[in-house]
């Protein structure tokens, strides 16, 4: 189990006073301190961890956010920002001595600017809500995390969320033009905008994916794209993971960038098929779904190309969706893979490492070996186009020791991802889940450099502490300059 920072007893002892102060800022129902009501916020999508906050506050205006943050800064109170609470890495896990800052009431679309292909939205608008608001104009918002019905744009910015289409259309960071944010000091900053490439340091780029550690976003300018005229999916079964992996590599090498390219192994296919009945081939070791979008001519051309590549790689079944309903059915199985696995196992942990695709077969083989070692089964779904794996480790939290074993298994998988040249997280974020593995991927100096960035935004480390970094930030120490041995080693080097 992961340890969170020790609650500050001095802050806890002032709980009544803090609640009263927050009520002065947000009158009415917006401040929640009833222990039962606080249970609503005790966890996010990483349900293995639960901790009710000291108090939750749901502001409705930017001024209230400013005042809340100023108050917390002055009074040394920690703040955990939260969107819809769908994080899979514990990014919104509350702190016992912290204020949970819920942004759900910021749910308005402020402007749709067709001429500049963007929309200005509040952070509590859902991901799907953006697309729904602009589709009558022929636009959509490209990033589409599986939780898009529920997850919010503010949370997407914090986590730099992806989705099945990000191989072709990018992550949140590539689809956000600007944000307005409030710093822990209560300052309002506007980063980016409707214009291209704001000069100076790319603070917008840093805010996206900062997991609530750098500021609270109060407005987001999202980039809109013209919706493709059509999309069709090819559903393919392969006799081995290797063959499916080779097919993916060949598709990429041929110059096709599919809108989405998803792979599932046999256990995941079986679970999904039993749940949804999408017509997946149950005799295959791997199922590949390749989505092609664009004009009809392009889809016809590319689907023929993909099918011919697949045949050369020994595909055993291959179906091109004939109707929109069939395309959605192909996806229904993949999109329901997590809940489907939830039906065959009481609990599961979802991993999120990315690997170079050429190592795919080897990594899956080694995960199979680990199943025996840890005595737990795994179902694999992954974004094959970009090498982003989602091994689902099946366990039963009610059996003593199984959660610990599942976590150890997960850590081993992520170490393997880094070992083969990959990374700890492709789209779910570090949060608390991968926090203690950061030093597998980064050196002490790498992590210190990241934490110095944090110091520039939040010198007292009050925003979402205990997330992302295995050690708490000590800004005074990190800011000290001591240059070692500068003059002793250098004189031997060539100088001209």
């Amino acid at each position, binding site marked *: 189990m992961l340890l969170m920072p020790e609650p500050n007893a001095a802050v806890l002892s002032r709980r009544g006073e803090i609640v009263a102060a927050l009520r002065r800022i947000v009158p009415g129902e917006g401040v929640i301190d009833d222990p039962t009501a606080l249970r609503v916020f005790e966890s996010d999508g990483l349900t293995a961890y639960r901790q009710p906050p000291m108090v939750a506050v749901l502001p409705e205006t930017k001024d209230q956010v400013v005042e809340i943050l100023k108050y917390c800064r002055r009074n040394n109170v920690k703040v955990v920002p939260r969107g819809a609470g769908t994080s899979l890495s514990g990014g919104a896990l509350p702190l016992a001595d912290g204020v949970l800052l819920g942004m759900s009431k910021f749910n308005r679309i402020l402007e749709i600017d067709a001429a500049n292909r963007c929309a200005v939205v509040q952070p509590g608008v859902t991901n799907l809500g953006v697309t729904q608001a602009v589709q009558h104009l022929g636009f959509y918002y490209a990033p589409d995390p599986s939780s898009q019905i529920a997850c919010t744009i503010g949370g997407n910015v914090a986590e730099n969320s992806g989705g099945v289409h990000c191989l072709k259309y990018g992550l949140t960071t590539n689809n956000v033009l600007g944000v307005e944010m409030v710093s822990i000091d209560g300052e309002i900053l506007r980063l980016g905008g409707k214009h*291209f490439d704001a000069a100076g340091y790319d603070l917008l780029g840093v805010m996206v994916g900062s997991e609530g550690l750098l500021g609270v976003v109060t407005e987001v300018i999202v980039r809109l794209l013209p919706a493709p005229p059509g999309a069709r999916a090819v559903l393919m079964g392969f006799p081995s993971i290797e063959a499916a992996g080779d097919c993916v590599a060949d598709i990429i090498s041929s110059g096709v960038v599919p809108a989405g390219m998803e792979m599932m192994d046999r256990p995941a296919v079986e679970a999904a098929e039993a749940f949804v009945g999408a017509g997946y081939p149950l005799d295959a070791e791997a199922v590949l779904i390749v989505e092609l979008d664009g004009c009809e001519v392009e889809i016809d051309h590319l689907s023929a190309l993909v099918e011919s590549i697949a045949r050369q790689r020994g595909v055993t079944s291959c179906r091109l969706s004939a109707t929109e309903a069939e395309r959605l059915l192909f996806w229904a199985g993949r999109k329901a893979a997590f809940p489907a696995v939830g039906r065959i196992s009481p609990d599961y942990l979802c991993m999120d490492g990315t690997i*170079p695709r050429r190592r795919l077969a080897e990594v899956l083989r080694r995960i199979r070996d680990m199943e025996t070692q840890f005595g737990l089964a795994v179902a694999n779904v992954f974004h094959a186009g970009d090498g982003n794996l989602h091994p689902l480790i099946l366990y039963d939290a009610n059996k003593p020791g199984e959660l610990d074993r599942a976590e150890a298994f997960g850590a081993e998988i992520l170490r393997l991802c880094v070992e083969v040249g990959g990374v700890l997280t492709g789209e779910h974020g570090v949060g608390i889940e991968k926090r203690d593995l950061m030093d597998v991927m980064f050196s002490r100096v790498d992590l210190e450099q990241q934490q110095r960035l944090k110091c520039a935004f939040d010198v007292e480390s009050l925003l979402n502490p205990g997330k992302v970094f295995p050690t708490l930030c000590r800004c005074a120490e990190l800011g000290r300059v001591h240059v070692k041995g500068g003059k002793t080693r250098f004189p031997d080097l060539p100088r001209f």
Partner: protein
Amino acid sequence: MTLLHPRDEADVADMVTWAAADARPLEIRGGGSKQGLGRSRRPDDVLDLSALAGVIDYAPDELVVTALAATPLGAIQRLLAQSGQMLAFDPPNWNGLLEASHAPTVAGTMACNLSGPRRVRAGAARDHLLGFRAVNGRGEVWKSGGRVVKNVTGYDLCKLQCGAMGTLSVLTEVTLRTVPRPEAQGTALVFGLSDQEACAAMTRALNAPLDVAAAAHAPGPAASRSVLAGRGPVTALRLEGHAPSVAFRLKALQDLLGSADSIEGPVADRFWADVASVHPLLHKAERVIWRVNPIPSKAAECAGALGRLIPETEVFYDWGGGLIWLSLPLDKAGADGGARAVRGQVDLVGGHATLIAAPAVLRDAAPAFPREAPAVSALSGRIKAGFDPLRILNPGRLHEDR
């Protein structure tokens, strides 16, 4: 003046450590092709990275390439082309613009966040940097990002390095995302539009589901110095992709715009390369050249107002209006290179402006890079201190205090 020639990353760390011990500022130089960009005052000591050149790893089917910092951009582009790939952000060659003769390097391009015409659809340089190794102002070697296309592990410091002009760390190695080179391309042309009409046409094209890859407009004077000279103002919209798709979309685009003309092949390549390199505005010496990034829908309004304000102003538009290249006659630009006039107009419509090419005295008279809001500036200063506390890496290159 000391010219430091590190042989490898360890040398870079040693040399920065040496400079840090005495708080000696260093000018970070890759190929030297961007020396004319930004404020002219430079540190005496130069850290010349030219020996850190070469591609370390290129895996076409992973869509990534890793190269040492001073690898010539052209060498990477040629290598990618051999496998039918390219850099999606279309890095431009600004040597004509900056009167430089040295080959641009990959890390220099990323440090300046330079993108070409394809930027309007494919994103900027910053969208394609996946990971890097670097030496900070303390002389420490550090890294961020990775060598895979999808990664959210830790803060996205790749974004921060792009556009930082070497003021945060010395890049020693970069990993970029690559994309397939399109099998076919075609450019629809419309002649004779006013700036206002052209910007509206570009918006119509970019808003249609036709996957337009680039959109530029050259008013009469600029058009007369392009490969399409002789037919007045020209608006160009580029499509790329698989051949049947390009043919279909080109027809649809021409129908949408009432366009009867198109180009492809070497003529089109030449046209777009000229747009990228700002060629249509480089015919005369004694000019001041600005890059203006207005809110795209206000581009014609912004350029029109500037044309009325400063006589003999020449412009052309890229990125569907998101980029205006502006050339002012030196004798009309004024002692600040036109900064007050240009920025005044840009502020009215929203956006920002950067002074790109001008005599050194003008580049020092007014800040080349746009002003920031006080809170943003203060935060950026604290960020600089976190990477380079002694202010020895390219100090003042980006802003006076950075």
